[in-house]
């Protein structure tokens, strides 16, 4: 595999440069190529007349619909409503679940007291409670905030708790032998060890929170991107539906990427992480 630089061949022909580029960025080339091929096939299929574009739309139609929506005040209102639901519900879930998860992990008794409820809620998709929550809070924004909250709070709490439980026992024993206080043990051993678990929970929770936004708005809402998708589906505006799905997809990717970035920041201290 080692190539010896020969002065005679140092002027690389263009084709081999291209080949080398392909080889070095194989992942990008193949991944991007498949994606482009998929979009082209979709476009061709959608415009060929074999299938009614009403059903599958096409990338250009989706782009056009998206562009048109950008000038639509209702769309920005929908986006704002969905964003608020997500941020309020997810924020509340993080604010409650991380401290509570830590407390449950630290205190055996608290775990015994709360685990029946946590386990029960964990066994059921929380969106099942949607009809009840709508009954209690109406179809406004708050019912969705609660669904989002319920969806996100359980995975974050369970992951945080299991992170505390799996703290390295040896480290704690060492710290104890050096008579570290309980707070010191918590802040310098348990908490840093739990961070990766918390982030796993946060990523899971973000997915569940988005799911809550979508389902809550599909089910009963007067505004929001999910509501927009549902309305567009009912009126066979497939392009608008696809654009809405794309927004959710982008949101999911961005949130996970942000959390990854944040996690790296917290994990910098760790020696030879991988």
């Amino acid at each position: 595999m080692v190539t010896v630089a020969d002065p005679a061949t140092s002027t690389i022909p263009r084709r081999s440069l291209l080949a080398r580029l392909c080889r070095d960025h194989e992942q990008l080339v193949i991944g991007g190529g498949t994606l482009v091929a998929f979009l082209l096939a979709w476009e061709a299929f959608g415009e060929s007349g074999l299938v009614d574009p009403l059903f599958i739309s096409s990338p250009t139609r989706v782009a056009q619909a998206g562009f048109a929506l950008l000038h639509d005040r209702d769309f920005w209102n929908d986006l704002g409503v969905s964003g608020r639901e997500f941020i309020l519900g997810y924020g509340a879930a993080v604010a409650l679940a991380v401290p509570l998860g830590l407390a449950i992990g630290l205190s055996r008794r608290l775990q015994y007291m709360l685990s029946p409820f946590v386990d029960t809620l964990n066994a059921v998709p929380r969106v099942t409670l949607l009809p009840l929550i709508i009954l209690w809070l109406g179809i406004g924004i708050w019912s969705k905030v609660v669904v989002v909250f319920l969806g996100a709070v359980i995975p974050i709490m369970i992951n945080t708790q299991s992170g505390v439980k799996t703290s390295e026992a040896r480290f704690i024993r060492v710290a104890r032998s050096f008579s570290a206080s309980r707070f010191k043990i918590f802040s310098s051993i348990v908490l840093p060890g739990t961070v990766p678990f918390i982030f796993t929970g946060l990523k899971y929770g973000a997915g569940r929170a988005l799911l809550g936004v979508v389902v809550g708005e599909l089910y009963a809402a007067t505004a929001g991107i999910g509501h927009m998708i549902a309305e567009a589906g009912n009126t066979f505006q497939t392009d608008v539906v696809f654009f809405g799905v794309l927004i959710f997809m982008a949101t999911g990717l961005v949130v996970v990427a942000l959390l990854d970035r944040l996690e790296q920041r917290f994990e910098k201290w760790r020696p030879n992480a991988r």
Partner: protein
Amino acid sequence: MRAERNMRAERSCYLLHERAILGAAMVILFLLAWEGLERGWWADLLHPLLGAAAERFKLKPIFVSSPTLVAQAAFRMFFVTGEIWRDLGWSAIGYVLGLVLAIAVGIPLGLAAGWYRRFSYAVAPFLSALNATPQVAFLPLIVVWIGTGLGARILVIFLLAVLPIAINAHAAVRTIDPRLVKVAASFGASDWRLFRTVILPGSLPLVLAGLRLAVGRGMIGVVVGEIYGSASGIGAMINQAGARFQTDKVFVGVLTIVAVGVILAEVVQRIERRVEIWRPPA
């Protein structure tokens, strides 16, 4: 501290069952508090303190129902009218078919992506994009394509369940000890043999972990697929009961799903343990 130590003998019985006792106590407290909301115990109790405002702590049964009402409704639905069995059966058909389809597609796809690097480059963008999307957002599209029948529900369940299976199968092949593969290959094992004796057993734990996730995701698919425009099934039952303010029936449906979820999780865990028996303890 010392007094506590002296009491240890008496308390050992309590300590042995601490988990059950504390857990049960909290559950009973919760149920009593709930029952009290509906029967107005709290209103009566707080009346001397708050006066007329205490009436706010008495809620209508259509709003909160109560444990006894839920139990009655459950008894009626399971054993008297038996109406819930039809819904359960209907949901189960969609769930099983969707999950089987997800397994049939997800495991080969994931294993292939794990084994063939170039194939994984090709499918990775789609998998990660789909994984980041709440897949239920496709529901209105699916309804446009194939209506609201059984097919739509199977497709939703499939979409939700296939990703964790495929992604875990992919990761499973990637994390197999390369030395094992090398040894097998140097002894001239055929691809099929390598797959059967190294790859498959080595990737099974992660694949099963993916299956455990998929089982839960599939339940989301059942519920969402049914509350969004389906006429039968347990999710549809919950939806209709909610719309008619039959709160007790809603709770029966939710608790039934809890029970099914717990049972399914237990089944998958059993399978996992069974499969892991040959493995030396880590």
